[in-house]
């Protein structure tokens, strides 16, 4: 693959990153998709929009959050210096809120009063319900019945925030199915409703728009690392379901050739068993409005993904990641459920930080590669969310031994 002048110019005007991306949606939605695109373009050019976004990130979300040097993980690994980007310290406990602030401002600009969203782990649902409360908008969240069961605390948070949580029972009742039902709702309520997609996927302009709103993560890391170490980081590691926390961290660094960039997919029970590693185990296809790598059978039927982490339990991935995979700018690897659970415990015990199971995948990969790296290697791991929501899943995974009586 040839080396490009820039990896940051995409997508093209039709929303394509190479062959990936696009707008594969029902005709009913197309006029609205085009309206979202035009509104976002106008908002991006409006300094007042940018100012309000930045102000809310600072005063409401609590940004910038720290780039924290993790001394005990670093000592444990015995190699690279490990820094954690503390997205878990954002209001609502994950990176998801960054994007929600941006999109709720856009929805308000477009005059929409009803917001719908899909959620897997519930982090995006909580963040969406939060901004809807803040802006006084009606909020409906689609969530798989399986996920409702394993993420109960987040379900209750959404309800407290005034959202209606609609359980989705089709398919495996996880994130993919929630997205199907959200799209069905949108087709049926196209005049009144804004679909607040939570990741860098879906029809154009969502992948680019969500990336732009999340790029605050990488922009901060660049400034913070410069302040702390006087230079660029050497590597970036982030987990990937749809891939918004990863894209937010990666995108500002794509043209810095010295920075090694690694995305970590969920290998579930193992790549030869049930997993959610779309790039490693899938091939290009079309679903949910975009062309991207998908887990599918020979007939093009979409496979059910599996991950212990509800937020990574999705058979697709954002189209820009597919493109970065094929151009080889970003390395994509995978981590199993068991490895993620071990990393969850390690980070909790050594740093006193309970990471989300999603983020634990990134930590698990750092644990694999950091030991062999030199001591002056600066590695940034995106701690995309906090793990309070996962405590009962972990207790179950550990056989109730360590946290006896909790479940």
């Amino acid at each position, binding site marked *: 693959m040839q080396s490009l002048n820039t990896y940051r110019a995409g997508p093209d005007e039709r929303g394509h990153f190479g062959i990936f991306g696009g707008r594969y949606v*029902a005709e009913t939605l197309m006029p609205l998709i085009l309206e979202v695109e035009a509104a976002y373009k106008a908002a991006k050019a409006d300094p007042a929009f940018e100012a309000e976004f930045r102000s809310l990130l600072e005063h409401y979300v609590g940004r910038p959050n720290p780039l924290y040097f993790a001394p005990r993980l670093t000592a444990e690994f015995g190699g690279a210096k490990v820094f954690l980007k503390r997205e878990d310290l954002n209001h609502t406990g994950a990176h998801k809120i960054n994007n929600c602030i941006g999109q709720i401002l856009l929805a308000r600009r477009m005059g929409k009063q009803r917001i719908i969203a899909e959620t897997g782990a519930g982090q995006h649902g909580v963040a969406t319900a939060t901004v809807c409360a803040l802006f006084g908008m009606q909020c409906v969240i689609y969530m798989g019945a399986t996920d409702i069961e394993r993420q109960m605390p987040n379900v209750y948070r959404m309800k407290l925030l005034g959202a209606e949580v609609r359980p989705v029972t089709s398919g495996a009742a996880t994130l993919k199915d929630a997205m199907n039902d959200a799209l069905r709702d949108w087709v049926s309520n196209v005049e009144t409703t804004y679909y607040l997609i939570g990741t860098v996927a879906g029809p154009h302009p969502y992948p680019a728009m969500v990336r732009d709103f999340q790029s605050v993560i990488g922009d901060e890391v660049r400034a913070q690392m410069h302040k702390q170490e006087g230079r660029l980081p050497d590597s970036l590691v982030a987990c990937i379901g749809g891939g918004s926390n990863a894209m937010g961290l990666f995108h500002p660094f794509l043209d810095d050739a010295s920075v090694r960039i690694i995305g970590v997919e969920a290998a579930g029970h193992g790549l030869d068993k049930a997993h959610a590693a779309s790039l490693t185990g899938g091939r290009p296809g079309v679903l949910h409005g975009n062309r991207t790598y998908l887990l599918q059978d*020979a007939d093009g039927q979409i496979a059910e993904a599996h991950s212990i982490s509800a937020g990574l339990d999705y058979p697709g991935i954002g189209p820009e990641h597919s493109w970065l995979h094929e151009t080889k700018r970003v390395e994509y690897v995978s981590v199993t459920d068991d490895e993620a659970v071990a990393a969850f415990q390690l980070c909790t015990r050594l740093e006193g930080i309970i990471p989300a199971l999603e983020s634990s995948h990134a930590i698990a990969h750092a644990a694999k590669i950091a030991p062999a790296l030199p001591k002056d290697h600066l590695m940034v791991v995106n701690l995309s969310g906090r793990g309070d929501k996962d405590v009962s899943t972990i207790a179950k995974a550990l056989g109730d031994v360590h946290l006896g009586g909790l479940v």
Partner: protein
Amino acid sequence: MTRIATRFAALKDEKRAALVTFITACDPDRATSQSLLNAMPAAGADIIELGMPFTDPMADGPAIQLAAQRALAAGGSLKVTLEMVAEFRATDAMTPIILMGYYNPIYAWGPEKFAADAAKAGVDGLIIVDLPPEEADELVPFLRASGIDFIVLTTPTSDDARLPVVLANASGFVYYVSIAGVTGTGSATQSAIDQAVARIRRHTDLPVCVGFGIKSPDQAAQVARVADGAVVGSAIVQVLADGGKPLDLVRALAAGVRGARQ
């Protein structure tokens, strides 16, 4: 002339609209689905839409979602769908068959090869729900080369500015999705349908068929007074799911459509 054009020309001479019926291929199993398909024309279907089962039918309501799940569980696939069309063609050379579904299975097959294989099986038209004009270039040229019509969907959100964009790819007939919603849910008012059909006719000379939310012979008859065809899907699929007699419903719908303009 294509089968679709021939059929609409004949219906014009008869001064009536078409009854377009939908079932999902392989629902609830291959044999039942095939015999239902083969019996549709005698029961009064003028054009048949055959659903290509897909795991994630994002624009379908519960009836057709469940039909797709049953079909997939029974071994349904794009390959089986084409085999069913070929078997139908051995018994019926005149009734147009339109495949309806989602893009990914076709993309997985390979658009160029699929167009050729579908034509060979006897497919006359294709409706792809998630392939708007913005992305249709990757399939439509191959369909044209194989003599398959690309049936476009227009919707209540297709205004006078949007319609020409959508209709640029159209051939065969135009399918008006009469509600902003998924299949088998609400129904549009007759006056909304009248206005929409009139508007589409200002932009195209192709026949206009109306679907989504048409459940009863009376509704089909109402639509048949203004449109060139009435499409019924979920209602037929539901009767099949409930263990009833879908062909009885098709006969009643046909009677409604045939009597509409008398």
